[in-house]
Protein backbone atom coordinates (compact mmCIF):
# COMPACT_ATOMS: atom_id res chain seq x y z
CA UNK A 1 0.00 0.00 0.00
CA UNK A 2 1.49 3.28 -1.10
CA UNK A 3 0.14 5.06 1.98
CA UNK A 4 2.60 3.45 4.36
CA UNK A 5 5.61 3.14 2.07
CA UNK A 6 7.82 6.19 2.35
CA UNK A 7 8.35 7.71 -1.06
CA UNK A 8 12.01 8.18 -1.91
CA UNK A 9 11.53 11.48 -3.75
CA UNK A 10 9.62 13.06 -0.91
CA UNK A 11 12.11 11.75 1.63
CA UNK A 12 14.94 13.23 -0.39
CA UNK A 13 13.32 16.66 -0.64
CA UNK A 14 12.17 16.53 2.96
CA UNK A 15 15.73 15.87 4.13
CA UNK A 16 17.14 18.64 1.99
CA UNK A 17 14.49 21.24 2.77
CA UNK A 18 14.19 20.46 6.46
CA UNK A 19 17.97 20.63 6.79
CA UNK A 20 17.99 24.07 5.13
CA UNK A 21 15.05 25.29 7.22
CA UNK A 22 16.64 23.96 10.38
CA UNK A 23 19.99 25.53 9.53
CA UNK A 24 18.47 28.94 8.75
CA UNK A 25 16.20 28.98 11.76
CA UNK A 26 18.82 27.62 14.14
CA UNK A 27 21.27 30.24 12.96
CA UNK A 28 19.14 33.34 12.48
CA UNK A 29 15.78 32.60 14.02
CA UNK A 30 15.15 30.83 17.26
CA UNK A 31 18.32 31.48 19.30
CA UNK A 32 17.91 35.21 18.73
CA UNK A 33 14.26 35.18 19.75
CA UNK A 34 14.65 32.88 22.74
CA UNK A 35 17.77 34.76 23.81
CA UNK A 36 15.98 38.08 23.71
CA UNK A 37 12.92 36.70 25.46
CA UNK A 38 15.14 35.17 28.12
CA UNK A 39 17.00 38.43 28.50
CA UNK A 40 13.76 40.28 29.01
CA UNK A 41 12.26 37.74 31.35
CA UNK A 42 15.50 37.74 33.34
CA UNK A 43 15.40 41.49 33.59
CA UNK A 44 11.73 41.36 34.61
CA UNK A 45 12.55 38.76 37.22
CA UNK A 46 15.42 40.90 38.45
CA UNK A 47 13.15 43.93 38.64
CA UNK A 48 10.56 41.91 40.52
CA UNK A 49 13.20 40.74 42.95
CA UNK A 50 14.42 44.31 43.36
CA UNK A 51 10.89 45.51 43.92
CA UNK A 52 10.35 42.77 46.47
CA UNK A 53 13.53 43.77 48.24
CA UNK A 54 12.55 47.43 48.16
CA UNK A 55 9.14 46.58 49.52
CA UNK A 56 10.69 44.50 52.27
CA UNK A 57 13.09 47.26 53.27
CA UNK A 58 10.23 49.75 53.13
CA UNK A 59 8.25 47.50 55.41
CA UNK A 60 11.19 47.25 57.74
CA UNK A 61 11.56 51.00 57.67
CA UNK A 62 7.91 51.45 58.43
CA UNK A 63 8.16 48.98 61.28
CA UNK A 64 11.16 50.80 62.61
CA UNK A 65 9.36 54.09 62.31
CA UNK A 66 6.39 52.64 64.13
CA UNK A 67 8.67 51.34 66.83
CA UNK A 68 10.31 54.74 67.10
CA UNK A 69 6.96 56.47 67.39
CA UNK A 70 5.85 53.92 69.95
CA UNK A 71 8.99 54.51 71.95
CA UNK A 72 8.60 58.26 71.72
CA UNK A 73 5.02 57.96 72.87
CA UNK A 74 6.07 55.79 75.79
CA UNK A 75 8.79 58.27 76.67
CA UNK A 76 6.30 61.08 76.45
CA UNK A 77 3.89 59.22 78.71
CA UNK A 78 6.69 58.51 81.13
CA UNK A 79 7.79 62.15 81.18
CA UNK A 80 4.24 63.36 81.61
CA UNK A 81 3.69 60.89 84.40
CA UNK A 82 6.90 61.95 86.08
CA UNK A 83 5.96 65.60 85.76
CA UNK A 84 2.58 64.91 87.24
CA UNK A 85 4.15 63.05 90.13
CA UNK A 86 6.70 65.78 90.66
CA UNK A 87 3.96 68.41 90.61
CA UNK A 88 1.94 66.44 93.09
CA UNK A 89 4.98 66.07 95.27
CA UNK A 90 5.72 69.80 95.16
CA UNK A 91 2.16 70.64 96.06
CA UNK A 92 2.25 68.02 98.81
CA UNK A 93 5.53 69.37 100.11
CA UNK A 94 4.28 72.92 100.02
CA UNK A 95 1.17 71.90 101.88
CA UNK A 96 3.23 70.01 104.43
CA UNK A 97 5.54 72.91 104.90
CA UNK A 98 2.67 75.32 105.23
CA UNK A 99 1.06 73.13 107.84
CA UNK A 100 4.29 72.85 109.74
CA UNK A 101 4.76 76.55 109.62
CA UNK A 102 1.23 77.18 110.75
CA UNK A 103 1.61 74.72 113.57
CA UNK A 104 4.83 76.37 114.63
CA UNK A 105 3.23 79.77 114.47
CA UNK A 106 0.25 78.59 116.48
CA UNK A 107 2.53 76.99 119.03
CA UNK A 108 4.53 80.18 119.35
CA UNK A 109 1.41 82.20 119.69
CA UNK A 110 0.10 79.84 122.31
CA UNK A 111 3.42 80.13 124.22
CA UNK A 112 3.30 83.87 124.03
CA UNK A 113 -0.28 83.87 125.23
CA UNK A 114 0.71 81.62 128.14
CA UNK A 115 3.62 83.86 129.10
CA UNK A 116 1.41 86.87 128.72
CA UNK A 117 -1.23 85.25 130.90
CA UNK A 118 1.40 84.29 133.51
CA UNK A 119 2.69 87.84 133.62
CA UNK A 120 -0.81 89.18 133.92
CA UNK A 121 -1.62 86.79 136.73
CA UNK A 122 1.59 87.72 138.55
CA UNK A 123 0.83 91.40 138.16
CA UNK A 124 -2.69 90.79 139.37
CA UNK A 125 -1.39 88.91 142.40
CA UNK A 126 1.00 91.72 143.23
CA UNK A 127 -1.80 94.20 142.84
CA UNK A 128 -4.01 92.14 145.11
CA UNK A 129 -1.21 91.79 147.66
CA UNK A 130 -0.55 95.51 147.67
CA UNK A 131 -4.23 96.21 147.92
CA UNK A 132 -4.68 93.78 150.83
CA UNK A 133 -1.62 95.21 152.58
CA UNK A 134 -3.04 98.68 152.17
CA UNK A 135 -6.39 97.51 153.44
CA UNK A 136 -4.73 95.66 156.30
CA UNK A 137 -2.68 98.80 157.12
CA UNK A 138 -5.81 100.88 157.19
CA UNK A 139 -7.59 98.27 159.30
CA UNK A 140 -4.70 97.93 161.68
CA UNK A 141 -4.29 101.68 161.88
CA UNK A 142 -7.94 101.96 162.84
CA UNK A 143 -7.68 99.10 165.34
CA UNK A 144 -4.47 100.28 167.12
CA UNK A 145 -5.42 103.84 167.75
CA UNK A 146 -5.04 103.49 171.56
CA UNK A 147 -1.98 102.70 173.65
CA UNK A 148 -3.36 99.74 175.56
CA UNK A 149 -4.48 98.09 172.45
CA UNK A 150 -1.00 98.47 171.10
CA UNK A 151 0.55 97.05 174.25
CA UNK A 152 -1.86 94.20 174.28
CA UNK A 153 -0.95 93.34 170.76
CA UNK A 154 2.77 93.59 171.52
CA UNK A 155 2.37 91.25 174.39
CA UNK A 156 0.39 88.88 172.37
CA UNK A 157 2.98 88.91 169.59
CA UNK A 158 5.79 88.35 172.11
CA UNK A 159 3.87 85.48 173.55
CA UNK A 160 3.33 83.97 170.16
CA UNK A 161 6.98 84.42 169.21
CA UNK A 162 8.01 82.80 172.46
CA UNK A 163 5.67 79.90 171.82
CA UNK A 164 6.91 79.49 168.34
CA UNK A 165 10.51 79.81 169.65
CA UNK A 166 9.80 77.12 172.17
CA UNK A 167 8.36 74.82 169.59
CA UNK A 168 11.34 75.49 167.38
CA UNK A 169 13.67 74.63 170.27
Amino acid sequence: MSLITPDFGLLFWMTLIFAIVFFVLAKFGFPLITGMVKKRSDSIEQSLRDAEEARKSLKELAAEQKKLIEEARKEQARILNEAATAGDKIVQDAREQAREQTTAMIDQAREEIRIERETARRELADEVTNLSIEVAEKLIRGHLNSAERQNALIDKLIEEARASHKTVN
Partner: protein
Amino acid sequence: MHRIRSFILWFAAALLLLAPATAAAAGHEASEPGELDMKSYIFGHIGDAYDWHITTVNGHHISIPLPCIVIDDGLHVFLSSRMEENGYTLNEDGKLVNAATGKRPVDISITKNVCSLIISSILLVVLILLTARWYRRHDVMKEAPKGFAGLMEMLISMVTNDIIKEGVGKDYEKYAPYLLTAFFFIFLNNLLGIVPFFPGGANLTGNIAVTLFLAVCTFLAVNLFGNKHYYKDIFWPEVPAWLKVPLPLMPLIEIIGMFTKPFSLMVRLFANILAGHIMLLGVVAVIFLTAKLGPALNGSMSVIAVLFGVFMDILELLVAFIQAYVFTMLSSVFIGLSRQEPAHEHEQLETTNN
Protein backbone atom coordinates in the same frame (compact mmCIF):
# COMPACT_ATOMS: atom_id res chain seq x y z
CA MET B 1 -6.49 15.03 25.18
CA HIS B 2 -7.10 11.41 25.88
CA ARG B 3 -10.78 11.94 25.25
CA ILE B 4 -10.11 13.63 21.92
CA ARG B 5 -7.79 10.87 20.84
CA SER B 6 -10.24 8.20 21.85
CA PHE B 7 -12.96 10.05 19.99
CA ILE B 8 -10.79 10.21 16.89
CA LEU B 9 -9.96 6.55 17.19
CA TRP B 10 -13.59 5.68 17.65
CA PHE B 11 -14.61 7.72 14.68
CA ALA B 12 -11.79 6.39 12.53
CA ALA B 13 -12.80 2.86 13.46
CA ALA B 14 -16.38 3.58 12.49
CA LEU B 15 -15.19 5.06 9.23
CA LEU B 16 -12.97 2.07 8.54
CA LEU B 17 -15.95 -0.17 8.99
CA LEU B 18 -17.98 1.92 6.62
CA ALA B 19 -15.23 2.53 4.09
CA PRO B 20 -15.16 -0.87 2.39
CA ALA B 21 -18.92 -0.82 2.02
CA THR B 22 -19.03 2.62 0.45
CA ALA B 23 -15.96 1.92 -1.64
CA ALA B 24 -17.48 -1.27 -2.89
CA ALA B 25 -20.73 0.51 -3.64
CA ALA B 26 -18.83 3.23 -5.45
CA GLY B 27 -16.84 0.62 -7.33
CA HIS B 28 -19.95 -1.10 -8.62
CA GLU B 29 -21.53 2.02 -9.90
CA ALA B 30 -18.37 3.80 -11.00
CA SER B 31 -19.33 3.24 -14.61
CA GLU B 32 -22.33 5.50 -14.26
CA PRO B 33 -21.51 9.12 -15.10
CA GLY B 34 -21.66 11.67 -12.28
CA GLU B 35 -21.10 8.96 -9.70
CA LEU B 36 -18.57 9.49 -6.91
CA ASP B 37 -15.63 7.11 -6.89
CA MET B 38 -14.88 7.02 -3.14
CA LYS B 39 -11.49 5.37 -3.45
CA SER B 40 -9.98 7.75 -5.95
CA TYR B 41 -11.73 10.64 -4.20
CA ILE B 42 -10.16 9.96 -0.81
CA PHE B 43 -6.77 8.73 -2.02
CA GLY B 44 -6.58 11.58 -4.51
CA HIS B 45 -6.78 13.98 -1.62
CA ILE B 46 -4.59 12.31 0.94
CA GLY B 47 -2.06 10.87 -1.47
CA ASP B 48 0.70 12.43 -3.49
CA ALA B 49 0.41 13.50 -7.11
CA TYR B 50 2.59 14.81 -9.92
CA ASP B 51 0.32 17.80 -10.50
CA TRP B 52 -1.64 19.93 -8.11
CA HIS B 53 -5.29 19.38 -8.81
CA ILE B 54 -7.32 22.50 -8.16
CA THR B 55 -10.82 21.64 -9.31
CA THR B 56 -12.80 19.93 -12.03
CA VAL B 57 -15.20 21.90 -14.18
CA ASN B 58 -17.53 19.90 -16.49
CA GLY B 59 -15.25 16.90 -16.39
CA HIS B 60 -12.27 19.04 -17.33
CA HIS B 61 -9.49 18.90 -14.72
CA ILE B 62 -7.89 22.17 -13.78
CA SER B 63 -4.54 21.54 -12.16
CA ILE B 64 -1.12 23.13 -11.78
CA PRO B 65 1.55 21.07 -13.58
CA LEU B 66 4.62 20.47 -11.45
CA PRO B 67 8.16 19.70 -12.60
CA CYS B 68 9.19 16.06 -12.77
CA ILE B 69 12.84 15.30 -12.10
CA VAL B 70 13.87 11.82 -13.08
CA ILE B 71 17.26 10.14 -13.15
CA ASP B 72 16.97 7.22 -15.54
CA ASP B 73 19.60 7.23 -18.23
CA GLY B 74 20.74 10.67 -17.27
CA LEU B 75 18.78 13.53 -15.76
CA HIS B 76 15.37 14.35 -17.21
CA VAL B 77 13.42 17.42 -16.15
CA PHE B 78 9.95 18.08 -17.58
CA LEU B 79 6.55 19.35 -16.55
CA SER B 80 4.06 16.76 -15.42
CA SER B 81 1.69 17.86 -18.18
CA ARG B 82 4.33 16.78 -20.72
CA MET B 83 4.97 13.37 -19.17
CA GLU B 84 3.82 11.36 -22.18
CA GLU B 85 5.96 13.35 -24.57
CA ASN B 86 9.03 12.54 -22.48
CA GLY B 87 8.39 8.83 -22.52
CA TYR B 88 7.02 8.37 -19.03
CA THR B 89 3.64 7.33 -17.71
CA LEU B 90 1.89 6.54 -14.44
CA ASN B 91 1.43 2.99 -13.16
CA GLU B 92 -1.69 1.79 -11.34
CA ASP B 93 -0.29 3.13 -8.02
CA GLY B 94 -0.04 6.59 -9.60
CA LYS B 95 3.75 6.43 -9.66
CA LEU B 96 5.86 7.64 -12.52
CA VAL B 97 7.35 4.81 -14.62
CA ASN B 98 9.25 4.53 -17.84
CA ALA B 99 6.63 4.06 -20.54
CA ALA B 100 8.85 1.72 -22.55
CA THR B 101 10.25 -0.55 -19.82
CA GLY B 102 7.60 -0.03 -17.10
CA LYS B 103 10.40 0.39 -14.55
CA ARG B 104 10.53 2.96 -11.79
CA PRO B 105 13.39 5.43 -12.34
CA VAL B 106 15.05 7.39 -9.54
CA ASP B 107 12.25 9.86 -9.04
CA ILE B 108 12.90 13.12 -7.23
CA SER B 109 10.05 15.02 -8.85
CA ILE B 110 8.57 18.10 -7.28
CA THR B 111 5.30 16.39 -6.45
CA LYS B 112 2.30 17.97 -4.78
CA ASN B 113 3.70 17.17 -1.35
CA VAL B 114 7.17 18.44 -2.21
CA CYS B 115 5.65 21.63 -3.61
CA SER B 116 3.61 22.04 -0.45
CA LEU B 117 6.73 21.34 1.58
CA ILE B 118 8.63 24.07 -0.28
CA ILE B 119 5.81 26.57 0.17
CA SER B 120 5.33 25.83 3.86
CA SER B 121 9.07 25.86 4.50
CA ILE B 122 9.45 29.26 2.86
CA LEU B 123 6.47 30.45 4.86
CA LEU B 124 7.95 29.09 8.07
CA VAL B 125 11.34 30.67 7.47
CA VAL B 126 9.72 33.99 6.59
CA LEU B 127 7.49 33.92 9.66
CA ILE B 128 10.29 33.12 12.07
CA LEU B 129 12.76 35.51 10.48
CA LEU B 130 10.13 38.28 10.55
CA THR B 131 9.76 37.67 14.25
CA ALA B 132 13.53 37.61 14.68
CA ARG B 133 13.74 40.88 12.77
CA TRP B 134 11.43 42.53 15.27
CA TYR B 135 13.87 41.61 18.02
CA ARG B 136 16.81 42.84 16.03
CA ARG B 137 15.15 46.21 15.47
CA HIS B 138 13.71 46.78 18.91
CA ASP B 139 15.13 47.04 22.37
CA VAL B 140 13.60 44.16 24.27
CA MET B 141 14.35 45.79 27.57
CA LYS B 142 12.06 48.66 26.66
CA GLU B 143 9.13 47.06 24.88
CA ALA B 144 7.37 43.76 24.32
CA PRO B 145 6.28 42.79 20.82
CA LYS B 146 2.68 43.32 19.82
CA GLY B 147 0.65 41.72 17.06
CA PHE B 148 2.26 38.95 15.07
CA ALA B 149 5.65 39.03 16.77
CA GLY B 150 3.86 38.95 20.11
CA LEU B 151 1.90 35.88 19.07
CA MET B 152 5.07 34.16 17.89
CA GLU B 153 6.85 35.10 21.08
CA MET B 154 4.03 33.61 23.10
CA LEU B 155 4.17 30.37 21.12
CA ILE B 156 7.96 30.16 21.20
CA SER B 157 8.07 30.90 24.93
CA MET B 158 5.36 28.34 25.56
CA VAL B 159 7.20 25.64 23.62
CA THR B 160 10.55 26.55 25.16
CA ASN B 161 9.40 26.80 28.75
CA ASP B 162 6.60 24.27 28.98
CA ILE B 163 7.86 21.57 26.63
CA ILE B 164 11.57 21.77 26.00
CA LYS B 165 12.73 22.99 29.40
CA GLU B 166 10.50 20.51 31.20
CA GLY B 167 11.39 17.57 28.98
CA VAL B 168 15.10 18.01 28.29
CA GLY B 169 16.09 19.57 31.57
CA LYS B 170 19.70 20.71 31.86
CA ASP B 171 21.33 22.23 28.74
CA TYR B 172 18.01 22.42 26.97
CA GLU B 173 19.25 25.37 24.91
CA LYS B 174 21.33 23.01 22.78
CA TYR B 175 18.21 21.16 21.61
CA ALA B 176 15.81 24.10 21.53
CA PRO B 177 16.44 25.06 17.86
CA TYR B 178 15.68 21.55 16.57
CA LEU B 179 12.65 21.04 18.79
CA LEU B 180 11.28 24.50 17.99
CA THR B 181 11.82 23.91 14.28
CA ALA B 182 10.06 20.56 14.53
CA PHE B 183 7.16 22.08 16.47
CA PHE B 184 6.58 24.93 14.07
CA PHE B 185 7.15 22.75 11.03
CA ILE B 186 4.55 20.24 12.16
CA PHE B 187 2.12 22.88 13.39
CA LEU B 188 2.30 24.96 10.21
CA ASN B 189 1.97 21.95 7.93
CA ASN B 190 -0.90 20.57 9.99
CA LEU B 191 -2.67 23.91 9.64
CA LEU B 192 -1.95 24.16 5.91
CA GLY B 193 -3.28 20.64 5.52
CA ILE B 194 -6.67 21.77 6.82
CA VAL B 195 -6.89 24.68 4.35
CA PRO B 196 -8.83 23.13 1.46
CA PHE B 197 -7.50 25.17 -1.46
CA PHE B 198 -4.24 25.75 -3.31
CA PRO B 199 -1.35 26.63 -0.97
CA GLY B 200 -2.76 24.20 1.54
CA GLY B 201 -4.65 20.98 1.23
CA ALA B 202 -1.68 18.70 0.81
CA ASN B 203 -1.47 15.90 3.32
CA LEU B 204 2.16 16.49 4.25
CA THR B 205 2.29 15.65 7.95
CA GLY B 206 -0.03 12.74 7.21
CA ASN B 207 2.60 11.33 4.88
CA ILE B 208 4.78 8.57 6.22
CA ALA B 209 7.95 9.86 4.53
CA VAL B 210 7.72 13.19 6.33
CA THR B 211 6.96 11.73 9.74
CA LEU B 212 9.66 9.10 9.17
CA PHE B 213 12.19 11.84 8.57
CA LEU B 214 11.14 13.77 11.68
CA ALA B 215 11.25 10.60 13.77
CA VAL B 216 14.74 9.83 12.46
CA CYS B 217 15.83 13.34 13.45
CA THR B 218 14.58 12.75 16.97
CA PHE B 219 16.22 9.32 17.00
CA LEU B 220 19.54 10.91 16.06
CA ALA B 221 19.11 13.71 18.60
CA VAL B 222 18.42 11.14 21.31
CA ASN B 223 21.10 8.63 20.48
CA LEU B 224 23.95 10.77 19.18
CA PHE B 225 24.08 12.84 22.35
CA GLY B 226 23.05 10.20 24.87
CA ASN B 227 25.38 10.07 27.86
CA LYS B 228 27.27 7.15 29.37
CA HIS B 229 24.51 6.39 31.82
CA TYR B 230 21.96 6.10 29.00
CA TYR B 231 24.06 3.59 27.09
CA LYS B 232 24.90 1.68 30.23
CA ASP B 233 21.16 1.35 30.90
CA ILE B 234 20.70 -0.07 27.41
CA PHE B 235 23.57 -2.53 27.25
CA TRP B 236 23.99 -3.35 30.93
CA PRO B 237 20.75 -2.39 32.73
CA GLU B 238 20.37 -2.81 36.48
CA VAL B 239 18.46 -6.06 36.44
CA PRO B 240 19.31 -9.56 37.76
CA ALA B 241 22.31 -10.98 35.93
CA TRP B 242 20.46 -13.93 34.38
CA LEU B 243 18.46 -11.44 32.34
CA LYS B 244 21.70 -10.22 30.77
CA VAL B 245 23.93 -13.30 30.40
CA PRO B 246 24.16 -15.61 28.61
CA LEU B 247 21.10 -14.45 26.68
CA PRO B 248 21.01 -10.62 26.57
CA LEU B 249 17.26 -10.39 27.07
CA MET B 250 17.07 -6.98 28.69
CA PRO B 251 19.65 -5.34 26.39
CA LEU B 252 17.66 -6.69 23.46
CA ILE B 253 14.45 -5.20 24.82
CA GLU B 254 16.22 -1.92 25.48
CA ILE B 255 17.61 -1.83 21.96
CA ILE B 256 14.17 -2.49 20.55
CA GLY B 257 12.96 0.33 22.83
CA MET B 258 15.47 2.68 21.22
CA PHE B 259 13.64 2.20 17.93
CA THR B 260 10.06 1.92 19.13
CA LYS B 261 10.14 5.37 20.67
CA PRO B 262 10.75 7.25 17.40
CA PHE B 263 8.61 4.71 15.60
CA SER B 264 5.67 5.61 17.82
CA LEU B 265 6.35 9.29 17.09
CA MET B 266 6.27 8.58 13.38
CA VAL B 267 3.08 6.53 13.46
CA ARG B 268 1.25 8.82 15.91
CA LEU B 269 1.67 11.96 13.81
CA PHE B 270 1.05 10.13 10.55
CA ALA B 271 -2.07 8.33 11.73
CA ASN B 272 -3.61 11.29 13.52
CA ILE B 273 -3.29 13.67 10.60
CA LEU B 274 -4.25 11.05 8.04
CA ALA B 275 -7.29 10.07 10.08
CA GLY B 276 -8.28 13.71 10.37
CA HIS B 277 -8.09 14.20 6.61
CA ILE B 278 -10.02 11.02 5.89
CA MET B 279 -12.70 11.99 8.40
CA LEU B 280 -13.15 15.42 6.87
CA LEU B 281 -13.28 13.93 3.37
CA GLY B 282 -15.77 11.34 4.54
CA VAL B 283 -18.03 13.95 6.05
CA VAL B 284 -17.94 16.00 2.85
CA ALA B 285 -18.52 12.87 0.77
CA VAL B 286 -21.84 12.34 2.54
CA ILE B 287 -23.23 15.25 0.52
CA PHE B 288 -22.33 13.62 -2.81
CA LEU B 289 -23.17 10.07 -1.79
CA THR B 290 -26.72 11.08 -0.85
CA ALA B 291 -27.22 13.07 -4.05
CA LYS B 292 -29.18 10.30 -5.78
CA LEU B 293 -31.40 9.66 -2.74
CA GLY B 294 -33.62 12.61 -3.59
CA PRO B 295 -33.47 16.29 -2.80
CA ALA B 296 -35.10 16.08 0.67
CA LEU B 297 -32.73 13.50 2.05
CA ASN B 298 -29.76 15.01 0.28
CA GLY B 299 -30.60 18.48 1.58
CA SER B 300 -30.99 17.38 5.18
CA MET B 301 -27.87 15.22 5.01
CA SER B 302 -25.98 18.15 3.50
CA VAL B 303 -26.94 20.35 6.42
CA ILE B 304 -25.80 17.67 8.85
CA ALA B 305 -22.60 17.12 6.87
CA VAL B 306 -21.79 20.84 6.85
CA LEU B 307 -22.43 21.16 10.56
CA PHE B 308 -20.38 18.09 11.25
CA GLY B 309 -17.70 19.33 8.86
CA VAL B 310 -17.44 22.58 10.78
CA PHE B 311 -17.12 20.61 13.99
CA MET B 312 -14.46 18.36 12.46
CA ASP B 313 -12.54 21.36 11.12
CA ILE B 314 -12.43 22.93 14.56
CA LEU B 315 -11.41 19.60 16.03
CA GLU B 316 -8.67 19.34 13.39
CA LEU B 317 -7.39 22.77 14.38
CA LEU B 318 -7.06 21.43 17.89
CA VAL B 319 -5.45 18.22 16.67
CA ALA B 320 -3.03 20.21 14.51
CA PHE B 321 -1.77 21.93 17.64
CA ILE B 322 -1.94 18.91 19.90
CA GLN B 323 0.03 16.68 17.52
CA ALA B 324 2.76 19.29 17.11
CA TYR B 325 2.77 19.67 20.89
CA VAL B 326 2.89 15.93 21.54
CA PHE B 327 5.63 15.30 19.01
CA THR B 328 7.79 18.04 20.48
CA MET B 329 7.02 17.03 24.05
CA LEU B 330 7.83 13.36 23.52
CA SER B 331 10.98 14.24 21.59
CA SER B 332 12.02 16.46 24.50
CA VAL B 333 11.29 13.74 27.00
CA PHE B 334 13.25 11.14 25.00
CA ILE B 335 16.18 13.52 24.73
CA GLY B 336 15.89 14.30 28.44
CA LEU B 337 15.92 10.59 29.29
CA SER B 338 19.06 10.04 27.23
CA ARG B 339 20.81 12.76 29.21
CA GLN B 340 19.66 11.86 32.68
CA GLU B 341 22.47 11.82 35.18
CA PRO B 342 22.41 8.86 37.56
CA ALA B 343 20.99 9.85 40.92
CA HIS B 344 22.42 8.63 44.21
CA GLU B 345 23.13 4.93 44.19
CA HIS B 346 20.41 3.90 46.65
CA GLU B 347 17.80 6.07 44.93
CA GLN B 348 18.74 4.40 41.71
CA LEU B 349 18.14 1.03 43.30
CA GLU B 350 14.79 2.15 44.63
CA THR B 351 13.57 3.29 41.25
CA THR B 352 14.67 0.08 39.59
CA ASN B 353 13.05 -1.97 42.33
CA ASN B 354 9.84 -0.11 41.85
